């Protein structure tokens, strides 16, 4: 039997996955582990004047676009952020899709970020949001294919902050 997690502290999904893999007789999952101090770019404008770009890795695509496949799909979908979340679809092999399909905002919060623009919390939302597939088991392909594609898209956008929403 697995040991059930504590209720008062964050769930340790790395430990939980290790236990599950052991039970199933799988070799240990290789988590990305980055120990160097991450690069730091200061925020240069107040939030209320900042344009934010949304990048969601929960497998969001827009109706009319090709859906992601589930075997290391390193593609990126450009999703107009003015479109309602009801136009967003989600696909992924490793999490329960039902709640996100009920309301895509819980993994791809376009409607909510537009709300925050209306409230004046943020200055604006980049016209294009990016959807990608976070379930890539090859760190090399994520690093060499997906990450540079996302960086190229975002740096071309002239935004002040990139908001990453993984699952």
């Amino acid at each position, binding site marked *: 039997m697995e040991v059930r997690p504590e209720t008062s502290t*964050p769930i340790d999904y790395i430990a939980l996955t290790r236990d599950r893999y052991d039970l199933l007789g799988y070799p240990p999952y290789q988590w990305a582990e980055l120990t160097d101090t991450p690069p730091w770019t200061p925020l240069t404008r107040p939030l209320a004047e900042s344009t934010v770009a949304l990048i969601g890795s929960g497998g969001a695509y827009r109706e009319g676009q090709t859906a992601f496949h589930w075997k290391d799909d390193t593609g990126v979908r450009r999703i107009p952020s003015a479109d309602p979340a009801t136009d967003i679809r989600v696909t992924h092999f490793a999490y329960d899709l039902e709640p996100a399909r009920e309301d895509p*905002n819980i993994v791809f919060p376009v409607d909510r970020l537009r709300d925050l623009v209306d409230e004046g919390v943020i200055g604006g939302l980049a016209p294009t949001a990016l959807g990608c597939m976070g379930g890539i088991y090859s760190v090399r392909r994520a690093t060499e294919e997906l990450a540079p594609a996302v960086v190229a898209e975002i740096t071309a956008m002239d935004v*002040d902050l990139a908001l990453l929403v*993984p699952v």
Partner: protein
Amino acid sequence: MPTLCLTSAYSITASVNPPRAAFSDLPLGHTVGRPHQPEFQRDLLRRALNAAVNMDAPGTIAATGVTWDSDGSWKRRATPTGMESEEDASRDGDPGDSRNVRVDTPQYQYESDRLAAGSGS
């Protein structure tokens, strides 16, 4: 480019070590909260964004203070891929692998999406 990474998987985010992260104590698949609860979702986003403004050290993971329920009892049903139903969690025996097979063809939410994408059959 400044980045802020939302997360509901603290240990995984700590391992990846992004410059700025904001942790909410929610089940996997609910990074921005509960479905159809716009104020819950906006509150989470406001807290995360405001936390980012105050961060001054790379590798910071701020807690938004947003939780799923008052006592964290959902965690007893947590799995590496989400949350079991109460029925499944009360069942005896070791769990299986709840992930889907990793097929290499597009996996549409609806059949109409496939047609809209013009990929035929």
